[in-house]
């Protein structure tokens, strides 16, 4: 699905990481962990082509993202749902409009009933007409998840999706992500929350990757 081959990333002359190879198979569930500043967010950005690697290759469905034009990358993002750390909503649009935004920009028809079902799935039916600044942290994360899956993407990438949430809300969000994986979606979650990873492993077969010393490693059995 998404493949990184000997990828390196440099900022300001220094390597953030290098020689990273990773293959996200269809339907797989991965966690990406590591200390703050290790490059988890950067690695995710490489996966949805917001950044280009300093070296190596990133490919999606066998196609190198370097060979893709801007419109191809836009189309690629319709197949990759992303839950950003800071959610990134358009504050002048309602929650429902924000969730439907990927459909709007792709000029695809919007089924209001399906949209409300999706909002119901993430528990935000009552907040459909609210503006993003009126939502709590947990509600924002769930709205971001709904927006990430509305195009029925093949891959779901989540960057610290539970970073600002309490434990109950984190588990609720995790359950939604596991549900999506059971529906066949490939899931990659960047997090430094080891408790979340342990909770997930009770529900799903997940591989845990760790960025340490500028390299990507498979985490130990303790996780």
């Amino acid at each position, binding site marked *: 699905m998404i493949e990184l081959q000997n990828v390196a990333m440099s900022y300001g002359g220094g390597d953030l990481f290098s020689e990273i190879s990773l293959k996200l198979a269809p339907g797989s569930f991965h966690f990406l962990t590591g200390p703050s500043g290790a490059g988890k967010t950067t690695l995710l950005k490489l996966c949805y082509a917001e950044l280009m690697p300093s070296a190596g290759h990133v490919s999606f469905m066998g196609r190198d993202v370097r060979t893709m034009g801007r419109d191809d990358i*836009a189309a690629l993002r319709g197949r990759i749902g992303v839950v*950003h750390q800071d959610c*990134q909503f*358009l504050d002048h649009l309602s929650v429902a409009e924000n969730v439907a*935004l*990927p459909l709007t*920009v792709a*000029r695809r028809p919007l089924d209001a009933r399906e949209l409300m079902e999706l909002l119901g799935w993430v528990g935000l039916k009552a907040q459909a007409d609210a503006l993003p600044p009126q939502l709590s942290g947990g509600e924002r994360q769930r709205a971001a998840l709904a*927006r990430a899956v509305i195009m029925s993407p093949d891959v779901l990438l989540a960057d610290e999706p539970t970073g600002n949430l309490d434990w109950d809300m984190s588990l609720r969000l995790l359950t939604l992500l596991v549900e999506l994986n059971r529906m066949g979606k490939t899931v990659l979650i960047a997090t430094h929350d080891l408790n979340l990873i342990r909770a997930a492993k009770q529900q799903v077969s997940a591989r845990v990757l760790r960025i340490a010393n500028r390299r990507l490693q498979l985490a130990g059995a303790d996780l």
Partner: protein
Amino acid sequence: MRAVLALIRADGRGVDRVVPPTGHTAWLTVLSAAAMAFLAVFALALALATGRLADRWSDALARSATIRISAPVDQMPTQTRAVLEVLATTPGIADYRALDEDEMRALLDPWFGPDLPVETLPLPQLIALTETAEGVDGEGLRLRLAAEAPGAVLDDHTRWRRPLVSAAERLRFLGLISLVLIGGATAGMITLAAQAALAANGQVIRVLRLVGARDSYIARAFVRRFTLRGLSGAALGTVLGMIAVALLPEADAAGGFLTGLGFEGAGWLWPMMIPPMAAAVAFAATRAAALRMLRGIR
């Protein structure tokens, strides 16, 4: 132009909705486009009026000439007769006649007032002539006049016609240059306003790219908005400019050059071109600015 029309016709409400209103750039763009269109109407009026003037002077003066007879009073009738006889047998002359005292007085009125006793002044006799389309051989006529009436001098107006026509043509050129400059200034102003709007919406644009929006989709929201603002502002400015031009004094009333500034007949259609041209300029300027900015965002 087709792209501009398609853009205006298309239902852009969905596109407009994703980009928030851009505050002061909205009315600033409309106001600037209106001001530029107002000036463009005057520049166009100047170009058309000076064009007409140049054509009129060139055409009218090219086919007329004057013969001035300066001779002692007792020889004046003889020389006048001789000149008229020469003119009667000169090919290329359509019409000629000696000006009478009333016509001479009318010519001098602007300088000396209406009560000038023309008959007491030693004025030369003037003979006005009109050439045929083929024209007259000026040098040949001069030689014949010198032989038959030594006091007669042929003035074919070349001496002062050329600088006048040249001045009018330069004014027309300046009017056209003004139109080009106004168009350039409009493009620059709209580009700045569009860049300000794009910069103010940097976060919105990033989010749109991240959820899969194509550059053309994002640019369309801004292009449509600024094209419509350019069009509406220019339409307003054009209407006001045309009203102002229509209210200028009639050319015949005062007879001066500037009072002739305006449009005649089908010439009133020319200013109608200004709003679509402004819309086209806004379209191109905003699209270029939007795509330039989007290239910096993955």
